[in-house]
């Protein structure tokens, strides 16, 4: 019921191109998260889907119907704002009932719907209170309630949790995921927080400077980032990038050299790369103490002990590139004392000069149970 197509959607503010021809298909019932750094156009894209911002060029199609010139209600969308946007002079009941009042729905039906929504969101005890008396999480639930009473085809969330404190955010994340399963509605969610994106999304759309950098399931983005931007954006702490030289290309992968050491990275080979400068990516959590296919001796300058993990920050020689390793919580390391760290070739990512990844030889079905199709087995 809630299927969305974006066809070459562009947006200009004056001569500044905010969105550069976005192509996207969102399937019915999908939870899609737009994620990206601030200014990448994710909120603008959401507001265009909502009908709050005009589309400069391209089509927005909902269920096969072009909706560019339709007001939000006629598009069948509902939106939850970052700032909640509750009506402060109305009770929780009236806030949730607002869209139905606009429709002039008969009182009994309206009451039943509002109460149903309030039950889903655990607001039944608060219906007669005003927003000013509620906590942040409750206010956000009222805002969501106002969206769900209308039973829209598509829900749009504009960074709905960014105003909440960390603990509440984690709770609301779980509630939203539950809500999505309960309503089985299409949801599009904008955030700059990759944890929200990774935990809630069926599919993540990573936006960078007005373009889609990559679209894929959370673990796909983590294990097979298409370019250095996605590789650096998904994952915390950030992926380490090392400049390497390509020695040779074989069926086994690409052999690279880093400061005299060589390793064969198991990626889909591409011809004509010998001698080229490539970028080797390795996630901090894939670095271990001791030796590996590549071994780096580093002197960490800062060590953060988080209990479960120890994060060590070091500098790699003169190029100013920082090197970060996430080690076990009990790792026997000290600041300003040299330590040998090892990297396994199988954990590495490899990118060409333009930052485009060589495809890793990783079967996604081995990693993510959700992608494992029992019918096909």
């Amino acid at each position: 019921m809630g299927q969305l197509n974006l066809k070459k959607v562009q947006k200009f503010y004056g001569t500044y191109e905010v969105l550069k021809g976005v192509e996207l298909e969102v399937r019915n019932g999908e939870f899609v998260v737009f994620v990206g750094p601030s200014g990448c156009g994710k909120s603008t894209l959401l507001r265009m889907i909502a009908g709050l911002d005009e589309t400069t060029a391209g089509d927005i199609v909902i269920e096969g119907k072009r909706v560019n010139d339709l007001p939000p209600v006629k598009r069948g969308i509902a939106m939850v704002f970052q700032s909640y946007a509750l009506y402060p002079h109305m009770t929780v009941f009236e806030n949730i009932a607002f869209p139905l009042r606009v429709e002039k729905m008969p009182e009994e039906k309206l009451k039943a719907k509002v109460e149903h929504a309030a039950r889903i969101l655990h607001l039944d005890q608060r219906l007669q209170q005003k927003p000013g008396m509620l906590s942040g999480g409750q206010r956000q639930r009222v805002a969501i309630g106002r969206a769900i009473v209308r039973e829209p085809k598509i829900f749009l969330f504009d960074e709905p949790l960014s105003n909440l404190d960390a603990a509440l955010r984690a709770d609301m994340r779980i509630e939203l995921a539950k809500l999505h399963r309960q309503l089985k509605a299409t949801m599009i969610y904008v955030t700059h927080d990759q944890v929200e994106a990774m935990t809630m999304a069926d599919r993540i759309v990573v936006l960078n400077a007005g373009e889609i950098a990559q679209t894929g399931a959370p673990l796909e983005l983590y294990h097979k980032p298409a370019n250095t931007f996605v590789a650096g954006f998904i994952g915390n702490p950030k992926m380490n990038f090392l400049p390497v030289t390509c020695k040779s290309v074989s069926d086994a992968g690409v052999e690279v050299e880093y400061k005299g050491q060589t390793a064969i990275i198991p990626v889909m080979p591409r011809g004509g790369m010998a001698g080229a400068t490539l970028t080797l990516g390795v996630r901090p959590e894939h670095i271990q103490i001791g030796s590996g296919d590549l071994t780096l001796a580093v002197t960490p300058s800062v060590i953060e002990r988080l209990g479960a993990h120890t994060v060590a920050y070091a500098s790699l020689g003169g190029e100013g590139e920082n090197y970060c390793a996430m080690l076990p919580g009990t790792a026997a390391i000290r600041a300003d004392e040299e330590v040998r760290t090892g990297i396994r070739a199988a954990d590495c990512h490899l990118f060409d000069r333009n930052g485009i990844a060589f495809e890793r030889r990783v079967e996604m079905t081995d990693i993510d149970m959700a992608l494992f199709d029992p019918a096909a087995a």
Partner: protein
Amino acid sequence: MSQPALINRYRWYELVGIYAGIFVFLSFILAPFVEGFLVSLKPLSLLFSSPYRFWPENGSFAAYRTMWVSVPGFARYIFNSFFISIIVTTVVLALVVPAAYAFARFRFRGSGALLAAFLAVNMFSGAVLLIPLFRLMRSFGVLNTYFAMIVPGVAFLIPSAIWLLRTYMMRIPRELDEAAFVDGASHFYTLRRVILPIAMPGITVVAITTFIGSYAQQFIFALTFNSKTEYMPLPVGLFAYFGRQEVVWNELMAASFVGIAPAVIVIFFLQRYLVSGLTAGAVKQ
């Protein structure tokens, strides 16, 4: 005794200074009122006695009774003033609320120029425009009517009211309009159900300033555009106490106090709507 927060703590000489300052300015502002009130209590003979006595001897409220007798139309003047101000305030609010909303929310060509023009109009005092206005009124044949005093009053009060209310409405988060729009509400519905209730304190301020402004500016319009005694407002009515031989000062003062009473009562009721914090909980600040 609980200590106030550090930022609110003063030394004794600072406190003395603050209260001395308050006393000086308050007495400057209030002295005429006190004097006026005391005069209204004194018999006329005492007013011209020498040496002048500030405190009334054998003071009485007699002037408050005799004033109705010496100027029989006085109740009518009060009513006229009140009536004109109420109509002016109502009309101004009816025009200014949608206008301020439009200026606060819509982007349209010339909105800046229009606002500047409103401000420019305010720089002309009504007195400068009296003669053109008089000719205009005469051509329309509306001299010597309530209309002649109400319409210019409205026109001169609209600009400042728009500026005041626009500023207030701009402080209401735009997300509220957007949320209502997404929920299918029209601009008019949004204005009525969302913006108006939240803007109530702002509207009250505009209502009070407009009412006071209208009360104050009647004098000049009434004097020029109206010659009928039965339409005269209070400020002109007070002239009736200026007799040929003498000015009945005590009754004049009593009449002044009685005359402003309705305005004070209206403002007293309006200020109940001046509650702050109406937008609490609307958006995360």
